[in-house]
């Protein structure tokens, strides 16, 4: 979809409606700095980026950039509007409110919303932006060209899904429970296998529950056993129950867990508990984070908060992970021991709160362990679970351990049947936990398999993305290489290409060969000018891939840092690669604009010139001419000497190009002086050669075009006298400068046919001897003097 016109009213520098009419052709727009060229680009960006203009995003422009969008001198009652008309006569109208927000209407609103600003517009300050962007940023910019958006979404969803499965299956919690159960199992069953434990449970079931069906599952057996054992205990005598309660209390192990916690705590002395927990979470994300880092110089480590160079960051994260791995294990071991200790204190409280041991406690309460009993009564196991410090451990060691030691001593002579029942009860209890843990372990294993499966799917999708991306970036790289070769023929920077860095997802970078040496980034060796040139090639290579979309390309002053040789080759790239696409080329470079006017085909290209900007209430204005003499005229009022000097500079450029087109022969001068010839040198030769070469058709004959030669001669004489004076003594007055400008403009017009409007070099005539306009009314004897 080509743009036919962009019209602005009171938008940025525009005042009354001003329209950039392209007639759906490609267009070169020339304007001095601040003449308002970029306002047209701003208008396109405003529409494409939903009311935002990148270079206006700052603290002073307001939420919707309202302070920068409107012309500062907009009269009350005037509306700020944009209209973009397309080749099918449809129109997009945007009315901008005072705060910068807008409403839009028109059939093309939706169509234009699909245009990406980054692949439609390239501004001067954005030329090298792609090169300077991060690898991830480059990937994001190119991703829409790969057509892999859906796959990228799938990969991201899979990554998050794996995490959801981990949370949903409570994998971390399961691992803690399994660790706790493993310790109890080892204590009760030693190295017994699962089957041996089940056999023991089955045997106990046969003994205690002989009257029940034997086909129940292991967990049900345990539950039945616990009921049966409880019934047996009920049948015990008071003495037997006391023995049993004391025996159970005496079996409880507090000391080893207190020691384990102390040992773990000693290792964690330097680490602050809550921070470790946070660090563990942060470190998980750091692995992903570190992959995305590259161009920043320094980075703050999210795990420890230190500022470190980015080069060292990956190594730093790895060291942090290694260093914390041991602490992680210690931390988890301590957590497990605290859990078990709390359970055991709870069991102790439960055992010694039974009625069966009431008399035993009464005896103790009158002796030296009275305080110990009080301490047991006040023990808060849940508080202990969340914060277990040295003070708590000492309390347990000094108050509770003596209690269970006493219980163990006092139950030493317990009857055999009590001891057996106590042991059986322990087997059933731990057996039940073990069987539950077997199921839990199976569930955790399934979750791990599932997570691994989802991760492998994500990797598969990412690999597919990589493969397809490689194919696409291969194509783009070929275009990039071709364009670079046009802009920089026979230069020692070659093999310019995009590539996917190893071992990094969602990343793209640019490689090249610099004097035969392979480089992973243009930032290592290329000068700023070359980077800009490369940035332009990348933009164009990406845009070329969108040929089918037929969107316009807008290039706003992108050749500022290009020297003349490289700038000149851009035309070749545009004509070779974008001859079917609309290109809007904006420049403040008068020399380049003049060259483009000479070089580009008028059939597909239009040329427009903006008048120098005067005041906000006058706004942006077009010159009625395609030449740039209005630049000179704009100085007539205040600086006639500048006006005259500008006219001379314009003639220097224009005549150099004309002389080149007409193959005018000039005496050879040494070195760079050939490139420094002035308008007078060309005019003198054109007038002299023109006597034989410049002809006008009269009837069926050709005669010397005297009027044209007179115009050239007049311009030459004025340039020699007034223009030199303007340049050196600055005493040219306004009428003189005006006459000089008019004469120069008239001199240049003689090379354009008044009938067909085409230049005298438009077509060859009579082989290679003559060139002529389209209709043949004027002609020049080509290359003859």
């Amino acid at each position: 979809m080509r743009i036919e016109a962009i019209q602005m009213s009171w938008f940025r520098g525009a005042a009354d409606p001003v329209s950039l009419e392209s007639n759906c052709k490609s267009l070169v727009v020339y304007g001095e700095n601040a003449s308002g060229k970029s306002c047209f680009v701003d208008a396109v960006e405003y529409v494409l980026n939903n009311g935002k203009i990148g270079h206006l995003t700052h603290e002073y422009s307001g939420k919707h950039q309202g302070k920068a969008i409107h012309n500062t001198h907009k009269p009350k009652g005037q509306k700020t509007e944009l209209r973009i008309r397309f080749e099918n006569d449809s129109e997009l109208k945007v009315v901008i409110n005072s705060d910068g927000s807008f409403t839009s209407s028109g059939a093309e609103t939706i169509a234009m919303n699909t245009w990406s600003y980054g692949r439609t517009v390239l501004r001067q300050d954005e030329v090298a932006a792609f090169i300077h962007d991060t690898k991830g940023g480059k990937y994001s910019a190119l991703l829409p060209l790969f057509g892999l958006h859906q796959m990228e979404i799938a990969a991201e969803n899979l990554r998050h899904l794996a995490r959801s499965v981990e949370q949903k299956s409570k994998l971390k919690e399961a691992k803690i429970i399994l660790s706790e159960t493993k310790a109890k199992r080892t204590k009760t069953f030693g190295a017994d296998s699962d089957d041996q434990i089940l056999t023991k449970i089955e045997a106990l079931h046969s003994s205690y529950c002989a009257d029940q069906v034997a086909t129940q599952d292991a967990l049900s057996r345990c539950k039945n056993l616990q009921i049966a054992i409880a019934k047996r205990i009920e049948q015990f005598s008071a003495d037997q129950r006391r023995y049993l309660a004391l025996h159970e209390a005496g079996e409880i192990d507090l000391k080893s867990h207190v020691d384990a916690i102390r040992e773990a705590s000693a290792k964690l002395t330097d680490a602050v508990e809550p921070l470790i927990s946070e660090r563990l979470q942060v470190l998980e994300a750091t692995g992903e984070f570190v992959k995305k880092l590259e161009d920043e110089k320094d980075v703050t480590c999210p795990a420890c908060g230190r500022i470190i160079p980015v080069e060292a960051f990956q190594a730093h994260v790895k060291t942090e992970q290694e260093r914390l791995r041991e602490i992680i294990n210690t931390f988890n071991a301590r957590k497990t021991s605290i859990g078990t200790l709390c359970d055991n204190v709870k069991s102790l409280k439960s055992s010694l709160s039974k009625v069966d041991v009431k008399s035993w406690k009464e005896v103790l309460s009158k002796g030296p362990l009275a305080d110990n009993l009080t301490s047991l009564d006040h023990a808060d196991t849940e508080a202990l679970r969340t914060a277990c410090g040295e003070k708590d451990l000492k309390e347990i060691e000094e108050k509770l351990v003596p209690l269970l030691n006493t219980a163990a001593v006092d139950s030493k002579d317990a009857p055999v049947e009590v001891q057996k029942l106590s042991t059986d009860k322990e087997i059933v209890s731990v057996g039940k936990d073990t069987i539950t843990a077997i199921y839990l372990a199976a569930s955790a294993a399934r979750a791990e398999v599932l997570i691994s499966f989802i991760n492998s799917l994500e990797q598969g999708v990412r690999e597919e993305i990589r493969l397809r991306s490689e194919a696409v970036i291969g194509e783009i790289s070929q275009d990039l290489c071709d364009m670079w070769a046009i802009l920089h023929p026979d230069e020692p920077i070659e093999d310019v290409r995009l590539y996917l860095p190893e071992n990094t997802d969602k990343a793209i970078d640019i490689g090249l060969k610099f004097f035969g040496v392979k480089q992973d980034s243009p930032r290592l060796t290329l000068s700023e000018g070359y980077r800009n040139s490369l940035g332009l090639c990348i933009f164009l290579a990406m845009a070329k891939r969108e040929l089918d979309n037929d969107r316009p390309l807008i290039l706003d002053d992108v050749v500022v840092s290009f020297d003349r040789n490289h700038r000149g080759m851009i035309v070749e790239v545009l004509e070779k690669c974008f001859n079917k696409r609309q290109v809007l080329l904006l420049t403040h470079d008068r020399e380049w604009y003049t060259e483009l006017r000479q070089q580009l085909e008028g059939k597909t290209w239009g040329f427009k010139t903006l008048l120098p900007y005067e005041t906000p209430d006058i706004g942006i204005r077009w010159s009625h001419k395609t030449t740039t003499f209005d630049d000179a005229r704009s100085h007539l009022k205040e600086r006639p000497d500048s006006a005259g000097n500008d006219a001379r500079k314009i003639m220097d450029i224009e005549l150099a190009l004309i002389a080149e087109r007409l193959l005018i022969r000039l005496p050879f001068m040494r070195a760079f002086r050939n490139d420094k010839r002035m308008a007078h040198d060309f005019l003198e030769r054109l007038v002299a050669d023109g006597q034989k070469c410049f002809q006008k058709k009269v009837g069926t004959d050709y005669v010397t075009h005297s009027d044209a030669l007179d115009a050239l001669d007049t311009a030459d004489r004025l340039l020699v006298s007034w223009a030199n004076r303007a340049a050196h003594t600055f005493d040219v007055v306004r009428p003189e400068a005006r006459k000089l400008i008019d004469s120069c403009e008239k001199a240049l017009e003689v090379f354009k046919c008044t009938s067909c409007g085409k230049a005298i070099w438009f077509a060859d005539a009579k082989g290679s001897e003559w060139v002529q306009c389209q209709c043949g009314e004027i002609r020049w004897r080509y290359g003859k003097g």
Partner: protein
Amino acid sequence: MTDAVSIRMEKLLGGELSEQQLSTTKLSSIAKLLVVDMVPASSDTEAKE
């Protein structure tokens, strides 16, 4: 990997998972279904777990 998981994942990848970035709630509900799909159908006890 169970067949149920394979079939569900195939459908998801051809549909929702590739269409748009899913919310945490949606991903959580899919995760729940997948966890259930992982339980072998032959074992009633494991299914209850």
